[in-house]
Each structure stands twice: as structure tokens, then as C-alpha cells.
């Protein structure tokens, strides 16, 4: 085993750190995750499958997938645009833009949800105008999408910005001297350079979009079979003493997240190997 000079002479420190990390991961990640799956199957497969067959559960699953299917592409495009601006150009107010991109990370999701109620709610700024035209934003799909887009916006931009900054502008400048248009250089130079980071960002964004609770809870209206996403539906089941069903749906949500993370890990390996070949 090859150790770096910094840790070579301190096996005690090294093993303490390893044991501590493993312990923390077991207690805070592995055990709760195992609990979700054991609870889900405690009353047998039939109960768990019956929980998925419930029309309200199917509606919650479809709604969650739909919201993610809208929010993730929107944030992919928005995130690329934001990262492109920040990494490749100098302009006044750039720091402010970076701060704004990160804002959803620092604001509590509940507040993010309430902001939309204040703007689009019936008593809000745009509420009366929207209501006259019969447009329902809050307590309906558009509100859920807005809240999810807001909360998950930083993921793509934050993964891309450091990489794009590190890569600098030289390749784009070279492309420009060879006569490439802005769009050509973006499509043929910039994007291929960041595509693995982009995929990582998209997957993280997707995991969060499906799991978001706070912001979505505020704007959902909690209408059974209509505006309940999976996280909200899990809470409802739990509150109705349907613990097995609640954990069955929770296990499905956890599985979706695990699949996402697994895909991300695979991609990172794959991209690492490609880089070595290149």
C-alpha cells in the first residue's frame, strides 16, 4: 500500500478518521435507509405492491416524474446559460449574478414556496390579474414546477462554473480564429468539454427535484390525487396511520434517488476512463 507522505507516519490518525467516517455513514445514512426498506416490507410484498396500485399513489408518482421532467430540462438550459455567462465573460454585476445563482441554496425552501404564494396567490401581486383570466398557478401544476425550478436551479450552474472557469477561453478563441460562429464554438468546443460535468449536474438536479418537500408543500394545496407529489403523499400516508404504505412509497422515492446516484457514479467512472484514453 502506498501512502502519501502526510499520513505515512500516523496510522492512528488515519484509522481514527476511517472508523469515524464509517461510523457516521452507518448511523446517519445506511441505518435510516435500511429502516425505510425494512418498514416498507414489514407487512410483506403484497402490502407494498398494493400501496403502489392505489390511484392516489400512481398520481403522486406520475406528478413527481412530470414535475422533474419539466424542471430538469429548464434548469439544464438555464444552468448552461448562467454558467456560460459567468465563466466566459466579464461584465459589471457578475458577482451579483453568481450570488443570485446560489440564492436558492441559502434560502429555506419553505420561504421559496411562500414567495410564489405572495406573487401568484389570489391575494398576491399578480393573483387578481391571473384570476380574471382563469389562470391557476399556485395549488396547481405550474406552482409545483415553479417552486421546484427555483429550488433546484443552482445544481447545473454550480457544477459547470468551476470547470468552465478552469478551462478558460483559449479553446473558444482558437475556434473563433478558425472562423467558427459563436453557436458553432459553443456546440463544438464548449459543450463537449463540459458534458460529463453537465450530466452530473443534471442528475443531482433531478434527484433533488423529485425529493423536494418544503417549497412544494407550500404551493401544493395537498389535493389528493391531483397536487400531491411523492414526498407530500408520503407525509399524508404517515399521518393516516398507513405506515407500511408510507414507507413503501418512501422506498420507491429512495430507489429513484439511488438509481440517479448510481448513474452519476457510473458516469464519473466512464468519463474518467475516457479522459485517460484521450
Amino acid at each position, binding site marked *: 500500500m502506498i501512502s502519501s507522505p502526510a499520513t505515512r507516519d500516523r496510522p492512528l490518525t488515519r484509522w481514527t478518521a476511517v472508523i469515524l467516517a464509517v461510523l457516521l455513514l452507518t448511523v446517519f445514512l445506511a441505518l435510516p435507509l435500511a429502516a425505510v426498506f425494512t418498514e416498507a416490507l414489514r407487512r410483506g410484498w403484497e402490502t407494498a405492491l398494493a400501496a403502489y396500485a392505489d390511484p392516489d399513489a400512481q*398520481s403522486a408518482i406520475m*406528478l413527481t*416524474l*412530470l414535475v422533474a*421532467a*419539466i424542471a*430538469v*430540462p429548464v434548469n*439544464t438550459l438555464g444552468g448552461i446559460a448562467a454558467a456560460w455567462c459567468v465563466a466566459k465573460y466579464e461584465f459589471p454585476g457578475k458577482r451579483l449574478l453568481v450570488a443570485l445563482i446560489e440564492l436558492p441554496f441559502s434560502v429555506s425552501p419553505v420561504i421559496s414556496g411562500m414567495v410564489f*404564494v405572495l406573487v*401568484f*396567490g*389570489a*391575494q*398576491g401581486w399578480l*393573483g387578481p390579474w391571473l*384570476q380574471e383570466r*382563469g389562470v*391557476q398557478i*399556485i*395549488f396547481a*401544476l405550474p406552482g409545483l414546477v415553479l417552486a421546484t425550478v427555483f429550488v433546484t436551479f443552482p445544481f447545473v450552474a454550480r457544477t459547470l462554473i468551476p470547470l468552465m472557469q478552469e478551462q478558460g477561453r483559449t479553446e473558444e478563441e482558437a475556434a473563433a480564429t478558425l472562423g467558427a460562429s459563436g453557436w458553432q464554438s459553443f*456546440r*463544438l468546443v464548449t*459543450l*463537449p468539454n463540459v*458534458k460529463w460535468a*453537465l*450530466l452530473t449536474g*443534471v442528475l443531482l438536479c433531478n434527484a433533488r427535484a423529485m425529493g423536494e418537500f418544503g417549497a412544494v408543500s407550500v404551493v401544493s*394545496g*395537498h*389535493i*389528493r*390525487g*391531483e397536487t400531491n407529489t411523492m414526498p407530500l403523499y408520503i407525509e*399524508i400516508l*404517515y*399521518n*393516516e*396511520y398507513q*405506515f407500511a404504505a408510507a414507507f413503501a412509497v418512501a422506498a420507491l422515492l429512495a430507489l429513484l434517488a439511488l438509481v440517479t446516484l448510481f448513474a452519476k457514479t457510473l458516469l464519473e467512472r466512464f468519463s474518467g476512463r475516457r479522459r485517460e484514453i484521450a
Partner: protein
Amino acid sequence: MAAFLPRRALLGAAALAAVPAGAQSLPTLLNVSYDPTRELYRAFNAAFAAHWAKENGGQRIRVNSSHGGSGSQARAVIDGQQADVVTLALAYDVEAIAERGLIDKGWMGRLPHNSAPYTSTIVFLTRKGNPKGLRDWGDLAKEGVGVVTPNPKTSGGARWNYLAAWAWAQRQPGGSDAAAEELLGRILRNVTVLDTGARGSTTSFVQRGQGDVLLAWENEAHLALKEFGAGQFDIVLPSLSILAEPSVTVVDRNVDRRGTRAVAEAYLRHLYSPEGQALAAQHFYRPRDAGVLAAAGGVFPPLNMVTIDEAFGGWAEAQKAHFADGGSFDRIYRPSR
């Protein structure tokens, strides 16, 4: 390979996004209700849909419901949730919606019994055998008693809890508002968990084992017994409680815009029908119908109850004196203690 990989994936996602949500054509009705009525309205919604189809040549309808703390549900309707009917924990929350012009003034007189088709009251749910000997409101203030109740600021049930204790204290020998405020202060200091809604409190007490006594709706207490077996908890009736009249009404502006007035009104009227009353009793709400009440037998023992009007001069007064900003609850409750 210069082609950018996820482009096709993105197009696929965009196509998926274009599919409209819930593309159903059934006429729908939305009932925005409070926390503990989930089971009641799940059963009633199905019963009403069947009843409506029978009366209207087989027309199928779909009734949705939404549940949460009564105050926050009223807030959602004010903020634009498209409720056709509201069935909330107390008249005050309906009144708050009416004040914004969404419900006509005088809504309370539109249906029998103050527009409250069933009633409930506040009881104690204790651990099996009542080990702390909690018999009446005064016992809740004793040292070392853990009390579970939701927050009166957000929960209708919690306001009934609070007022029931207050009314009891006023009626004790030497009772006064000052004595009541003192008792409530001592009870609130014993509160171990202050959830936002009644159901959250029940879960805290029943599922997570918090506290010695849950101040609960009578129906919520019976439901907990039913779900978890009668062997684990006891229902204790205090010497005096309060008659809770959960109010129901049509949200006029919403039904007029959506064209659902007829079905919304029929829905609420059906709550007063023998079928509606029997469902209420089955879910442990005290039915208004004397025959249905008698048939339920020992489930609803007679209990000495005050009404909000006689004890507090109505909800507007009670709200102002106790739960509005600067009311008695704000004076008493100091969470940091």
C-alpha cells in the same frame, strides 16, 4: 465523437412534459377540510359520488379533498385554492374566508344547526390505565405531566382545547379570567410537543410515545383507539368540555366561477342525510340526527359541554381575546422556557 450526447434525451423529456396533467373530463368537486376528517371524507366522498350518480341519471363525479390545520387551510383558500366547499374545524376560519369576499355574509344560516352537520368535543387520551391519574383540566397543570396539543395559532382543534380548559377554570370556585390565564400558563408549560395540526399531535402521542396525555378531538381519540387497539390508551372525559361545531359551507365565488354550485350544495346537504349522519357517527363525530345518535349507543356518552357563544360570546370575540396577536395565548406562551 463530437455530437453532444444528451440532446436526444432532452427532446424526450420535453415531449413528456407536453402531456397535460390529469387529463380527465369528470366534473370534480374540491372539499378543503381540516386535519382529522380524512377518513370521514374519504368514505363520504365515495358515498356522495354514488348518491349523485343515482339522482342524476348516472352522471359520474369525482370529489377531491385536501386536509391540514384548519387555519392554514383557510389561508390556502384565501390565497386562491379553488375549493368548492370548505368543511373546517371552526366557524372563525370560515369567517376569515368570508371576510375576503369569497363566501357570502350570513353563510352560517344557510344550513341547519349553524351549518355544522356534526359536532365533536375535546377529550383526554391517556396511556393505558391513566398512570398519572389525569381526570380533569386542573390535573394537566401538575408538575411532571407531559401534555401534547397542537398550536392554537395554526390548528382549530388546539383552539377548542384551549377554550375548553379556559371555560373549566372560569367555572371553578373562585374562578376568573386571571385564574384561567394562570392555569393555561401552567398547562402550556407542560406541553412537550406543539405540532401544527391535530393529526400531527396524535402521531406524536400515539406513534412516537410523546407525553402522558393528548388533548384531542373526541373523534381523533376514538380513531387512535381503533387504529392501535384499545389496549394501549384510555379516553378520559373531563367534568366539562366544549361543544365543537365544525362548520361547512359553499365557497360562493369559486362555485360560481366553476359552475359547480348545484353539486356543491347537494354535497353539503347530503351530510345531513341519514347516510351522511351515519357515516359521521361511524367516524366518531356526534351526529345531529337524534335517531342516529341513539343508534350509536355508548360511543358518545353524555358530557357537560359549554358552547362558544355562551362561554366566550362567539368566535370573533374568542379569537380576539385569546389567539390574535397580543391575545392571552401570546401573553402566556413562552416557548423558550
